[in-house]
């Protein structure tokens, strides 16, 4: 009886594997769950793969295989289902600070500005902002609660010295065109993480806001980050919490190189973006 069952399973092993993988792909594509693993552009490829597996499944179902086959082949086919087990375990997982600590090599650095933008005297508004930041006492830790929609104070109250509009940028843009942002008030979305080097270089109020850039899949993810030097009296941010960081963008010349920072940064809790990676 068991032997007969094993023989049937062995004969239909490819079909079983294709059913499992086709089901997984359908679910990932329909729920957009694949975005945690691969770049958004892969959605179409995975949908096509799903169709391809259905075609193979059809051919397996209506094709003939020998009745008697070594059961060891079933064991070989089972290896193809191992990733399915780990996929189940990866539900809800994201690349976060754990991966960051193994992929980030030092603080984020950039090249010197072509026209030495960081050496230019700041605008009057920016200079006032710098003075305000310098005069701030160290922050008073408090619990970090995701703010209710009405909870956060208006932006003006948070940054009275700020001038001009806030430029919403991605961390990737900060990485790609840092010199064009110097002196501007910018806001970025990413995960927050305390960082020893950042604290050593910029004081206790410094942390990093980071996100991963993915070209194909999470395996090639590279972290992009900015040091956020926070303003006073802000809540303690737990590691890997999604935040929107807003501050004046500067390039600071340090012992580790030229490091992009957000000065006088304010952090607010954010829901996780639809695509966690850039």
């Amino acid at each position, binding site marked *: 009886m068991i032997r007969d069952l094993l023989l049937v399973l062995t004969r239909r092993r490819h079909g079983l594997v294709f059913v499992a993988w086709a089901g997984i792909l359908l679910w990932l594509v329909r729920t957009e769950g694949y975005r945690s693993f691969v770049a958004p552009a892969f959605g179409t490829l995975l949908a096509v793969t799903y169709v391809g597996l259905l075609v*193979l499944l059809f051919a397996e179902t209506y094709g003939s295989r*020998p009745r008697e086959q070594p059961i060891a082949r079933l*064991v*070989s086919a089972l290896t*193809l289902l191992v990733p399915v087990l*780990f996929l189940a375990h990866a539900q809800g997982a994201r690349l976060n600070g754990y991966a960051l600590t193994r992929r980030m090599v*030092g603080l984020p650095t950039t090249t010197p500005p072509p026209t030495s933008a960081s050496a230019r005297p700041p605008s009057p508004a920016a200079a006032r902002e710098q003075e305000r930041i310098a005069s701030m006492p160290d922050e008073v830790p408090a619990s970090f609660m995701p703010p209710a929609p009405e909870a956060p104070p208006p932006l003006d109250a948070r940054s009275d010295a700020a001038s001009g509009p806030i430029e919403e940028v991605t961390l990737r843009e900060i990485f790609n065109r840092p010199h064009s942002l110097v002196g501007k008030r910018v806001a970025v979305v990413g995960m927050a993480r305390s960082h020893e080097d950042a604290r050593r270089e910029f004081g206790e109020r410094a942390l990093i806001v980071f996100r991963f850039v993915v070209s194909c*899949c999470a395996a090639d993810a590279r972290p992009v980050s900015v040091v956020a030097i926070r303003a006073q009296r802000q809540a303690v941010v737990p590691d890997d919490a999604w935040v929107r960081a807003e501050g004046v963008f500067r390039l600071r010349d340090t012992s580790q190189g030229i490091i992009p920072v957000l000065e006088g940064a304010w952090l607010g809790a954010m829901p996780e973006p639809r695509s966690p990676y850039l």
Partner: protein
Amino acid sequence: LTAEALPLLRRRRLPGGLSWLDVAFLAAAGALLSLGYGSPGVRTFALLYTSLVLEALPFLLLGALVGGVVEVFVSRERMAALLPRRRWLAVAIAAGLGVVFPVCECAVVPVVRRMTRKGLPVAAAVAYLLGGPIANPIVAASTAVAYRFDWRIAALRAGLGYVIALTIGLLVGRLLGDEALLDGGSSEESGECSCDHHPHPHHHNHEHERTGADTGSTPGSVEGAVPPPRSAWSRFGGRVAEALHHTSDELADVGRYFVMGAFIAALAQTFLDRGLLLAVAGRPSLAILAMMALAVALNLCSEADAFVAASFQGMVPFSAQLAFLLLGPILDLKLLLMYQTVFRRRAIAFLAAASVGLVLLVAAAVQLAGVPLGAAR
């Protein structure tokens, strides 16, 4: 180890025909999942492992499909007619085939596997296997984008990749010949078929012009029975079905090695601290070796690895970045396992040694020449 255990360990198969590799892999996966369930490390591992598999699956399927079509629709005679008579010319063309058929390293393995069975010379097979994933326009474009549209780096990578593929192809052809192949390149003559959709051992031309697929008899029909004539469409449909069966077999065979290689790669991706590279960054020779080791360990797709290499600008010399870019697409942990579906172990060892040696040589030459590329972010 007892005297009885040693012969068992030397065998590649366990009792019942079980493969050591399968059993060890399943045991390792089970142990990791049960011992580290829920821990941040294993969750990250699961994420990265799944990512590697999902990323490669479409390309594995595509490669298996092309392999299946080659198996059924291309005869040895047609393959021979397509190849240039001069062997070195065939190798030179094969190393640059990626320009016309841009494929990543996952997709190329099943294609090469089937093409060698159709009589593609081993030298040309190796040249395409190694050159296809580097010397192709998609990889060149991604390399240029990663290095801020510095096309010199993309051209250098493609050109050197081509030369390395060509050199190793010629070396394998000269030193190992068809003995490098798993079945000695003679499976068709011997009548052995790696697939299992034929119910009994028989000699068949894998162009399938004389099998049940064409004649109307189902595989397994009584030998000697005269099948009824079938229409051209029906014959074509039968051959398509055969091609799909071969695709299934190919996907399962190559995919099995892939999921094992990706497992090891995900372990390295999860637990390897790239910050350790900083310790050797100041010494070019060590940096080159470290970046080569990283390329083997990370198992990145050739279409994405340039972005990772570029992230090391300003930290390691360009020669080390180039070594990473050249070695990754031709030698990594998953490829080492996938190559087992095509080559004998001795040939894989030769391929690995030649790849490492040539990339090291090229990187050292670039370092000594002081090529002023990829210096800073």
